[in-house]
């Protein structure tokens, strides 16, 4: 009887962990992400949707982990999101070369020409 209860609890836990995930998260890993594996992408608003509350007597998942599937804890201190700014030299705008000024009509020189005429 105890074995059956344990197996049943394990099944419930497994269902809670793997079977009740939202449809659009079907391709996400079955194992809930640990703190260090959490992506920087925002998670669904209600990750608890579809999770069945454990029945009485069932041991709840350990606290302190990533929690429910799809939910990530706060990032570890010191971990910074990758900067989206291009590093120098990569995609940096290049100053255009200066354009030569437009030539203006010159004042005439008063002089007798010696052209071929």
């Amino acid at each position, binding site marked *: 009887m105890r074995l059956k209860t344990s197996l049943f609890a394990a099944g419930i836990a497994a269902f809670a962990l793997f079977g009740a995930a939202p449809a*659009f*998260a*079907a*391709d996400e890993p079955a194992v809930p992400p640990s703190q260090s594996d959490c992506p920087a992408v925002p998670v669904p608003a209600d990750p608890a949707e579809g999770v069945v509350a454990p029945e009485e007597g069932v041991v709840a998942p350990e606290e302190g982990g990533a929690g429910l599937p799809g939910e990530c804890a706060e990032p570890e201190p010191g971990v910074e999101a990758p900067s989206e700014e291009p590093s120098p030299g990569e995609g940096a705008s290049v100053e*255009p*070369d200066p*354009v*030569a*000024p*437009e*030539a*203006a*009509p*010159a*004042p*005439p*020189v*008063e*002089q*007798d*020409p*010696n*052209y*071929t*005429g």
Partner: protein
Amino acid sequence: MRRSTPPRRTTGALPSLAAAAALAALTACSSAPASEDAPGTGEPAAGASGDAGAEAVEIATVVGGEVDVHAEKEDAEASQTLTSPNDFGVDRTFLVERNEGEWLEVLLPVRPNGSTGWIRSDEVELSTTAFRVEIDTEAFEFTVHDGEEEVRAGVIGTGANETPTPPGRYYFTELLRPPDPDGDYGVYAFGLSGFSETLETFAGGPGQLAVHGTDDEDALGRQVSHGCIRVSNDDITWMAENLPIGTPVEISG
């Protein structure tokens, strides 16, 4: 020339990695920014080598007292040195045919007509003009273009049979105002970078060609000169008020 970016597809929810990869492949062909030819890239200057294009040309004006001209760029030895100002007291000016940054290939105001050479860009100041003058000696007419737009046209007198006006690509080297506006050169005269091919000297000068005015209307529409192009005093006055030294002049016919 800009290439259009393929339209992005709205896929909605695509949870599979394979679908995401396919989407990335479809949008990978983004347009690369067209690179414009920057100055000094080795490209011919607009309007170079007889191409009477509508783009602006560059004019180089010597900043010092002289400029070394090299037969080939980066030649250690200069093939000749030209003084500035020129014999008329006007700052020496060249029409740039090719800009390669440190070096400029320029049209030279020396014999034979059409001579070019290389000068260092740090010896000159550059300016631009979109004006160009086109002369058709067979039709006895000139037109002045400002870019794509024709801004002035008129009748011309050309060289006589014995002293023809040689066709070619030239530029204005100086603007003179003769003391006698009723004389043979009219109210103004633009010297050209070219020379008569039949006269080595004329009037004490080196046989230099010019575009100058005249008050003799009978001289227009005919072959009458010693090689110069004659235009009405009104037309040469308009040119003097609008066209800079260095304006390219294409003579055909």
